[in-house]
């Protein structure tokens, strides 16, 4: 087998060296009744060529985003990632390295984590960021738990503009952890009165901007009301590119900013792996979840980096840890950091402007289709349209015409009549005039 360096001769010699003739003698502690002789129900080994052919066949059954006019968003976004990013993250020294617990031989990883933390803090307008969560949704759940620890309260208020699956992650964990959640109804146009839901029992208010429906939300009044009641504002985003163009949540008073970083450096990957960004105020760092990389010096006084404040973490603190997270999204951080390095602040702003411009063009194009109404007045690169018939049917019909035309809200919020006709459409720098024309033409046919 190509991955196994021991030859049969090696095995025989090594068994002799350890004093036995049959490797099964080593497995003596497995109860006899439970021993098996291989996995008879599974196929035998295959050549690399055969595996490649088989997986390529499966991949061929999926429609790749780049191959069609593509307007699907709802928390994951199609962007162009420079080839240098994917090349660099595949370098052996990054790809096949372990968690940097031994800083003397992992300064490469540690320095890019420090750079990542700096970038995330700058983008979110916060003081500190950690070295990543799994993704935006689990990061949001961690943020809620952190708010509970900081406030010593356990009731979270969730905006109706929060991504429904993010909400479900928070709700599921809260239910089993005996915490409370008040989730507001779906809020496509961003008109909910979340201020009214904040009271003295509230530990945190969770607000997404741009919202799941694309609406830009003013966080300042929410932060003020939350702070007045001793609660924290958790600001969530699913499209990090938006931070190139809209005001940073940290500038608007957020206490924790958490979001999805996939758009920068990372592909769609059918949902994962992604990278959760997590930032907060300096004063809360000892309640933060996740790894933190910090600057220090080595025995010779040279600058170096280490994982720090690990007394928050499970491998030191065990059942008193701030989170159980261990493996995170290290390599996705690297992809994020490299892409962000190439862009810089000005490049990100320019990229964001192109995204926004294409979304504005798309809005204009779709508004030209009879029966289509755009629900959002302020948005970034995604918005919600109301169609004259169920959006799920429309999306299927568009797919048959070779256009991936967005996400029907009913896919994430099934069984809600008022949401059935809503379609979420996203646009980015990859969309051309031809893409938009194809979308409009197909939409006219299927409506």
């Amino acid at each position: 087998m190509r991955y196994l360096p021991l030859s049969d001769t090696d095995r025989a010699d090594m068994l002799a060296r350890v004093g036995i003739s049959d490797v099964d003698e080593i497995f003596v502690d497995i109860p006899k009744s439970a021993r098996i002789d291989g996995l008879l129900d599974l196929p035998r080994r295959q050549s690399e060529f055969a595996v490649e052919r088989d997986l390529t066949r499966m991949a061929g059954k999926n429609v790749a985003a780049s191959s069609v006019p593509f307007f699907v968003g709802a928390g994951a976004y199609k962007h162009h990632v420079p080839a240098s990013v994917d090349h660099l993250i595949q370098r052996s020294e990054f790809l096949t390295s372990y968690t940097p617990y031994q800083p003397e031989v992992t300064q490469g990883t540690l320095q890019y984590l420090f750079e990542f933390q700096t970038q995330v803090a700058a983008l979110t307008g916060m003081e500190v960021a950690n070295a990543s969560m799994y993704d935006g949704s689990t990061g949001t759940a961690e943020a809620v738990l952190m708010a509970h620890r900081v406030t010593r309260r356990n009731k979270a208020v969730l905006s109706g503009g929060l991504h429904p699956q993010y909400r479900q992650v928070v709700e599921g964990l809260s239910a089993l952890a005996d915490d409370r959640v008040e989730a507001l109804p779906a809020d496509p146009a961003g008109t909910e009165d979340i201020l009214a839901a904040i009271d003295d029992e509230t530990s945190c208010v969770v607000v997404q901007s741009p919202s799941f429906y694309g609406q830009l939300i003013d966080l300042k009044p929410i932060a003020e009301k939350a702070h007045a009641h001793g609660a924290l504002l958790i600001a969530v985003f699913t499209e990090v590119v938006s931070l190139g163009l809209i005001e940073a949540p940290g500038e608007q008073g957020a206490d924790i900013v958490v979001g999805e970083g996939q758009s920068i450096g990372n592909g769609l990957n059918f949902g994962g792996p992604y990278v959760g960004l997590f930032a907060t105020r300096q004063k809360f760092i000892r309640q933060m979840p996740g790894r933190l990389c910090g600057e220090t010096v080595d025995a010779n006084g040279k600058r170096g980096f280490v994982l720090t404040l690990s007394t928050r973490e499970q491998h030191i603190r065990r059942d008193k840890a701030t989170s159980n997270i261990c493996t995170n999204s290290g390599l996705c951080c690297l992809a994020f950091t490299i892409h962000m390095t190439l862009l810089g602040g000005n490049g990100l702003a320019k990229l964001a402007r192109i995204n926004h411009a294409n979304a504005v063009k798309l809005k204009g194009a779709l508004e030209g289709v009879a029966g289509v109404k755009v629900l959002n007045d302020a948005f970034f690169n995604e918005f919600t349209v109301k169609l004259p018939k169920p959006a799920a049917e429309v999306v299927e019909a568009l797919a048959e015409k070779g256009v991936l035309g967005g996400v029907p809200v009913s896919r994430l919020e099934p069984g809600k009549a008022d949401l059935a006709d809503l379609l979420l459409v996203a646009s980015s720098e990859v969309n051309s005039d031809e893409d938009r024309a194809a979308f409009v033409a197909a939409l006219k046919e299927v409506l």
Partner: protein
Amino acid sequence: MEEPLLFEIGRMDVCGVDLDEAEDFAPALGSHARKAVPDLPALTEPETMRHYVRLSSKNYAIDAGLYPLGSCTMKHNPRLNEKMARLPGFGDVHPLQPLSTVTGAVELIGELAHWLVTMTGMSAVAMSPKAGAHGELCGMMAIKAAHQAAGRDPKIVLVPESAHGTNPATAALLGYKVVSIEAREDGTVDPAAVKARIKEHEGDIAGIMLTNPNTCGLFERDIIAIAEAIHAADGYFYCDGANFNAIVGKARPGDLGVDAMHINLHKTFSTPHGGGGPGAGPVVLSERLAPFAPLPFLRKGEGGIEWVETDAELKDGEQPFGRMTAFHGQMGMYVRALAYMKSHGADGLKQASEDAVLNANYVRVGLQDLMSLPFGQRWCMHEVLFDDSFLKETGVTTLDFAKAMIDEGYHPMTMYFPLVVHGAMLIEPTESESRSSLDLFIATMRDLVMSAQKGETDRFKGAPFHAPRGRLDETRAARNPVLKWERPAATAVQPQAAE
């Protein structure tokens, strides 16, 4: 060669990405436009390449050397898997595209799920957990949901002393009280001790979290009795599957009484560690826990595999406790893991486990006369645990010893874990190492031990001396945390106005 931070060499007036200017348009940002661009300097592409290539040279990696990390299974990462994960049909597919346009993706997840449940002898698998600890959380949430569905609310979770830190941390997240179980003299858990704890907390036992093979590198020989005791107390058996690499094709957790076990695809099935992640931690479930598996899940329907994303699609008996994450989990890791499994096949997977265990025992036998085995000269599984008795009176600590390995070209072994022995050194060579690689490692370790015992402390105190950095001051880092770069005041620039 030193490499500055990117911010120290970056500039605001260059860019490593060429973008066309957006044509004139009327923005629809309302009052939300930011006033200044983010204060982040950029590097052009050649500078970016050089910066990260240079940084990479400061890292140790599997591709360059042996990783003797116990409990972490740092094995060969085949590049076929990287190539497959990057096929546009996998890497460039959106999680919320119409299902009719992702049938191959669902097929792949279904096939991987089949391998996982077949290998483990379990009933179902929750695919979406993003890493091992997330899988633990998923498994314990299923257990709690099952108790609640039965109208129970037990509060105690038993955890052996030797457990990974994630085990108690996970239990605590769900409000459980963690009760510790000590190891018996041979390093394994005594069913009698389990029964005693159960008796102390009668009626309040939610379950046990047990690692098998355990973190001392030993197979829990009384695992079936332990499982029976837990089940008799209406508790569930959560198995930490971090060490599954030792027993694939040799035993199935389902036959041992396990109710839930996460599988680290980034350990056992070789998806790369990537400097700390991403991983993937699917959780296999027993028949009793299967109904509680979170959304989304796969169901065998009449027309083939069905993909269930929402409560609206549930059938009788399906009671998902919620959702672990947005979307469907770590597709990129699924592709890699399935490519790995298909490449090995049933025969190769069994052989890999046997080779992993043989390699560990070969290292044990090569070192046991010089180093100290806390539980005597017995068979270990895929990793071998030493304690620091052999360093007694040498003035050399486990930490010194581990750091001195760096100067010999090795990553240190896992140290001070598990906590059940003094100055633990846990070594897992994995099946990826050749015999000559092991021989060189053994010879190097023997040389280090003899050097320590001869009193050559200079080689150890303050080591490493030949690494990119000397020993780092962790206390200073924690006392006054510097967690990001700050632009030096003297060079502060006025952020440009955003257009």
